[in-house]
C-alpha cells in the first residue's frame, strides 16, 4: 500500500479552512456575548476578524483570485489601527473606573 492513496484521502480541501474559520468566528462571537471584561471582549472581536481573514485567503486560493488576499492586507491595516484606538479607549476606561466590566458601562443609554 503506497502512501499516495492515503495522501489523497487526506487532501486538505477549502471546506476545512471554512469550517475552521466558522468555528473561530463562533468562538469569537460567543466570547463577545458571554464575557463581561471589555479586554476579553476585544480579544474575541479580533478572533472574529481573523476568522474572516482566513475565509478570504481560503477562497482566494480555491478560486485562484488574488483579490481576496489583497483584501486581507487591507483588513490587517485597518485592524491595526482599530486595535490602537480600541486599546487606548480601554486604558482610558481603566484609568477612570478601576475595572472594565461591560455591563457597568451604560452611560450612553437613551
Amino acid at each position: 500500500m503506497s502512501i499516495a492513496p492515503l495522501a489523497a484521502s487526506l487532501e486538505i480541501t477549502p471546506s476545512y479552512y471554512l469550517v475552521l474559520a466558522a468555528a473561530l468566528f463562533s468562538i469569537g462571537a460567543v466570547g463577545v456575548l458571554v464575557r463581561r471584561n471589555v479586554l476579553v471582549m476585544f480579544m474575541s472581536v479580533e478572533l472574529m476578524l481573523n476568522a474572516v481573514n482566513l475565509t478570504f485567503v481560503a477562497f482566494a486560493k480555491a478560486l485562484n483570485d488574488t483579490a481576496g488576499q489583497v483584501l486581507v492586507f487591507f483588513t490587517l491595516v485597518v485592524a491595526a489601527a482599530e486595535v490602537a484606538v480600541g486599546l487606548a479607549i480601554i486604558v482610558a476606561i481603566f484609568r477612570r473606573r478601576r475595572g472594565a466590566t461591560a455591563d457597568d458601562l451604560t452611560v450612553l443609554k437613551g
Partner: protein
Amino acid sequence: MNAHDLLQTVGIVPLLPLLGAVLLLFFGRRIGEPIAGWIATGLMGLAFLWGLVMLGAALSLPPEARSVSSVVFTWLPADVLKVDMAFLADPLSITWILLVTGVGMLIHLYAIGYMHGDPGFGRFFAYFNLFAASMLVLVLGNNYLVTFLGWEGVGLCSYLLISFWNQRESAAVGGKKAFIYNRVGDFGFMLAMFLLIAEFGTLDYGITGAAAGSASSGVVTAVALLLFLAVTGKSAQIPLFPWLTDAMEGPTPVSALIHAATMVTAGIFLVARAHPFFEASPDAATVVAWIGAITALLAGTIACFQPDIKRALAYSTISQLGYMVLALGIGAYTAAIFLVLMHAFFKGCLFLGAGSVIHGNDENQDMRVMGRFRAFLPVTAMGMVIAWLAITGVPPFAGFWSKDLVIESTFEAGDYGLWVIATLAAVMTGIYMTRLIFLTFYGNARFNDLPQPDAIPAVSGGSDDDAQGAGVAVADADVPPYTEAELGYDPDYSPTVQYPESPRAPRLHGHDPHESPTVMLVPIVVLAFLSAIGGLLNLPIHGLEFLGEWLEPVFEGVQQPAPSSFEEGLALTGVAFFFAAIGITIAYLIYHRGLRAPDRDPLKDKLGHGANLAGNAYYYDAGVSAFVDKPGRAGARFLDETVDTKVIDGSVNGVAGLVRRAGDGLRALQDGHVRRYAIGIVLGTTALLMYLLAYVGR
C-alpha cells in the same frame, strides 16, 4: 440695416426710462432739482424718438410683415413650458409706445413745474420713469407673462405714486386701496395664465390666439372672463372701480399720466391683444360690452355731483374707460383704441389743467369755492375748454370722432339696449364736464366768499403749536412728527373733498389764484392742440381712416361693426351729438352764472335723494367697506382662531406628538448595554443568513 432688423431693437424703448429710474433711484437726491426732472423727461423724449423710428420702420414694411418679435433671453426654460423674455413690435404695441412715451414725456415736463420745491423731487421722477418702463414692457410683451411683468410693475408704481405724500393719511390709504383692488384683478390674470398653460402649453400671444378658435368654448370663455376680471381691476370697471377715485390722492401729474392717460388703458390693451378669445366667446364679449356700458353710465351720473375737481375727472375717466370697454365688447377694436388715444389727449389735458388750477389755488380742489378762474389762469382755461369740447363730443374736436364712433358702432352691432345706455352716458358726459368747466372758469368768483378761518395757519406762527400738539398725540404711535417745512406739504391737510362735505375756505389768505409757470403750460397747450386736431387720425371717410388701416393686420379677420354708409354714419353722429348737446345745455342753464352760495349746488338741490345716491357713488364703496369690516373681518378671525390654530396647527402638533410618543417607546431599547446590542446584531445577522439560505440561495 433693414426695417425688419430695426424693429428687433424695440427693447431699447423700455430700456431708456428704466435707465433713468435706476439712476434717479440711487442718485436722485444728490442730482436734485431740477436736473433730475430734466433727465427723466429727456429719456422719455429719447424713447419717444425711438418709438417714431419704430413707426417709420413698420410703415416701410408691407402691412402683413409688420409684426416682429425679438427674443432677449429665455426667461423660464422649464421643460414643457418655455417662456421667453421677448418683445413684440406690431401696430398695436407701437401705437401704445407712442402714446406712453409721447404723452408721458409731456406730463414729465409738466411735473418739473408741479413738483417744484418738493423734497422728494428725485424720488418722484425715479418712480415716474419706472412707471413708463413698466408700461412699455406691458405693451411690448410677446407673451402673457411679460405683459404680466409690466402689469405688476405699473401696479407697484401706481401704489408708490398714489401714496407719494405718504405722511398724509388719506394718501397712504388710497395707495393701499388701489393695490388691493388691483390684486383681485391680478388674481384673474394669473388664473387665466394657468389655464392657458394647462390647455395650450404656452403663453405666446400668437400661438394661443391661433388656437383659441378651435379650443373648447368653456375654456375660451373662462380665459376671456378671467382676463376681463384683470381688466376691471386695472381699467377701473364695475365691480373693481372705487380705487381710481382714491388714487387722486397722488400728485396731479400722477393722476394725469397713470390714472387717466396710460395705465388705466392697459386693460383695453389686454383685451385687444387677447381678442381671439373674446372673438371666440360671444358670451364673454357680451359680458364685456354690458359691464362697459353700465360703468360708463353710472360713473357719469356719479361725476355730476362731485365737488372735487379731481374726483369728478376720475369718475369721468371711469366713464370713458367704460366706453372703451363697451367698444371692445362689441368687437369695435379700432374704435376702442381710437378713443384710448384721444382720451389720453383730452383727459391728460383736463388733468394737467386741474393740476394747474390746484397749483395756482393753494391746493384747493373744491370747485364750489372756485369760479371765474379764466381771468386768473387764461392759458389753463383755454386748454381745458378745448379739452371740454373734445370730451363732450363737439365737432370737430377729437372726442367727436372717437366717442361717436363707439356709439355708432354700438348701434351697428345691433344691441340697441347698449346703444341707449351709451347715448345716456353721453348726456352725462355733457352735464358733468360742462358743470366742471363752468364752476371752475366761469360764473361768479367764490374763492373769497367763505371767511378765512384763523385756525388754519399760514406756515409759521400758530403751526408750531399745532405741530407740537400733534407731536404729543402721535408720539404713542412712534411716528416722528414731521412738519410742513420738512415734507413740503401739510400732512394734516387733505385736499380731497368728498361728496357730502360742506365747502371749505381756500387757503389763499387774500391772494388771487395765479397762473402756472411756462413749463406746466406748454404740455397743456400741446395736449389741447392734439385734442383739437386728433380726429384727423381716423376720419370716417374712406381713405382717411389712417388708424383703422394701420391696425388692420392686428385684427385681421375680425368683423368690426361700422356704419354701412356715410349717410347712416352721419345720421347716427347727429343723434349722438344731439344728446351730448342736451347734456351741455342742461348744465349750462344750471351753472352758467356759477353758484349763488358755495354750499348750494342747484343740481343737487333739485334731485334730492337721487343726488345723494349718485353723489355717494351708489354707496358701493361704503358697502364694500362695511362688508369687509364686519363679515370680512369675522371670516378672517374665524380662519385665524379656528382654522389656523385648531386645524392647521393642530395637525402639525399632532404629528409632532405622535413622533415624540413613538420615540419615548423606542428609547427603552437603547439601554447602553453593549452586550445586549451585540446579541441583537448576532441574532439579526443569523436571521438574515437563514433567510438568504432558505429562500434566495436556491
